[in-house]
């Protein structure tokens, strides 16, 4: 069974361990600016949400690529960037409606979450369980539940 990142923002304390782990895994340095997962803060840090690619089924990035530099890893289900093929044209960065594939000026290529080949370091580093790596079915279920809870008629506190 393929696994996905399950993100539960209510558990996020904005400690940025995920960004550190991600940049270290991919860039070899602790540099949140280069992280493929990004924590966004609301209300001056009172709420935070870790945000990264959901490896969506539509794969807008993949379809927009002019040179087939993006491909889905059949084992992990992640859409991965082939750095040796990517020409750095950035069309995927404007085509992806989630904003989760971005240009890296240093490499001259684009970068996105690749689930670390099946062992996502952000999840491993998260101390509060806000990011976990779980069976895909379960995240689908949880997402539906979360969505249903938000779209019902109850006013939000």
């Amino acid at each position: 069974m393929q696994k996905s990142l399950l993100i539960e923002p209510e558990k996020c304390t904005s400690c940025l361990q995920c960004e550190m782990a991600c940049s270290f895994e991919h860039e070899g340095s602790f540099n949140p600016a280069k992280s493929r997962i990004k924590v966004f803060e609301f209300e001056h840090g009172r709420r935070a949400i870790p945000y990264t690619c959901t490896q969506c089924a539509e794969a807008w990035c993949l379809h927009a690529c002019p040179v087939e530099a993006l491909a889905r890893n059949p084992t992990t289900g992640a859409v991965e960037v082939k750095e040796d093929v990517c020409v750095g044209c950035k069309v995927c960065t404007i085509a992806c409606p989630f904003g989760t594939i971005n240009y890296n000026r240093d490499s001259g290529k684009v970068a996105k979450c690749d689930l670390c080949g099946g062992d996502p370091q952000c999840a491993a580093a998260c101390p509060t369980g806000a990011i976990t790596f779980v069976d895909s079915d379960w995240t689908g279920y949880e997402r539906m539940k979360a969505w249903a809870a938000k779209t019902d008629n109850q006013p939000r506190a």
Partner: protein
Amino acid sequence: MDYVVVGAGPAGVIAAETLRRADPSGAVTLIGDEPAAPYSRMAIPYLLAGDIEPAGTHLRHGTGHYRAHGIKVVKGRRVTRVAAKSRVLTLDDGAKVKYDKLLVATGSRPVRPPIKGIDLPGIESCWTLADAAAIARKAKPRSRVVLMGAGFIGCIILEALAARKVDLTVVEMADRMVARMMDRQGGDMIKRWCEGRGVKVLTSTRVEAIEKTKTGFRLAIGRRAALEADLVVCATGVAPNVEFLKGSGVETEFGILVDHGLRTSVPDIFAAGDVAQGPELITGKPEVHAIQPTASEHGRVAALNMAGVPSHYRGSLSMNVLNTLGLISSSFGHWQGLPGGEIAEASDPDHFCYLRLCFKDDRVVGALALGLTQHVGVIRGLVQTGLPLGPWKKALQRDPHQVMNAYLDLTKAVP
């Protein structure tokens, strides 16, 4: 079922692959007039800059991709006529090809302004792999190059020519660079940035005539001035390849008119990509959006409908991303604004930073961004989904840079 796709660019290739998947038993033929394996024009600048080899421009890699997918590729053959009643194509060698469903994905070709000397040998367009090879032979370090046209394509070529370390002058008729993708403010910032990096940029300037000199060319600009050049590259616009459809009954305006299913006015003939003029996402008006994402989306939807899988295309969204010597800019949708809409801008010219959002009613309909590379895709997300902004509209009007937070909140990603 015999499916024939004319034009082996991104729209044609994606359509052929989609046809194969949607109708495993149909015969799929892809006919293109260029000699090389199907490639992406938009990879040409990176070839010119020396970043990749010619094979790096190919749409699909690995030998035998098309054969493995049961797609018959006919290279170096031009379709010259379409007999719609009998459903027969004529090729330039006289051969006839029968079709049941036809996709026209013939793209566009460069056009030049009608001035004296414009067709002299050695004045190059930058549209095909062959063009790129011709430019590469002549664009040597320090050679004097005049680039005519600073539109989107011109500016992409500018970047590649600069990488070849030529002595570069850009001549543009309009009052600013990338006039169709940037407003005055953004265009001026790009110009100032390029000038600061050693490129001469002449806007509101017209090349009046070109003549041959002993070593190259002399370009008359304005009344008295002239430019000397070893190489002239022309990026002065394009026209769709529709001539071979004469007599077929396929209706054209600027491009081939298509509906939300990419159908033309003639049954069983479809069109996709740069050659097609189809509904725009927000207004629904027929427009040509000559960009890679539209070619890809058109190709897919057209193929599905050809194969009998009813598919509705909501419409194309104009979007571009440009790198001019390290300054990255992007544009989305109706960045000029729509009648009755509102506009919010945040600009920091000293740091070459600019963000402009255009609203209509309760949604974002267009945007410009300069100096922004992280998460720009969410702007497409907002425009594409037409997400009602609610209270975020006011917040965005105050500070356009809140766009990511607005997006996250509105898509309910935040608890």
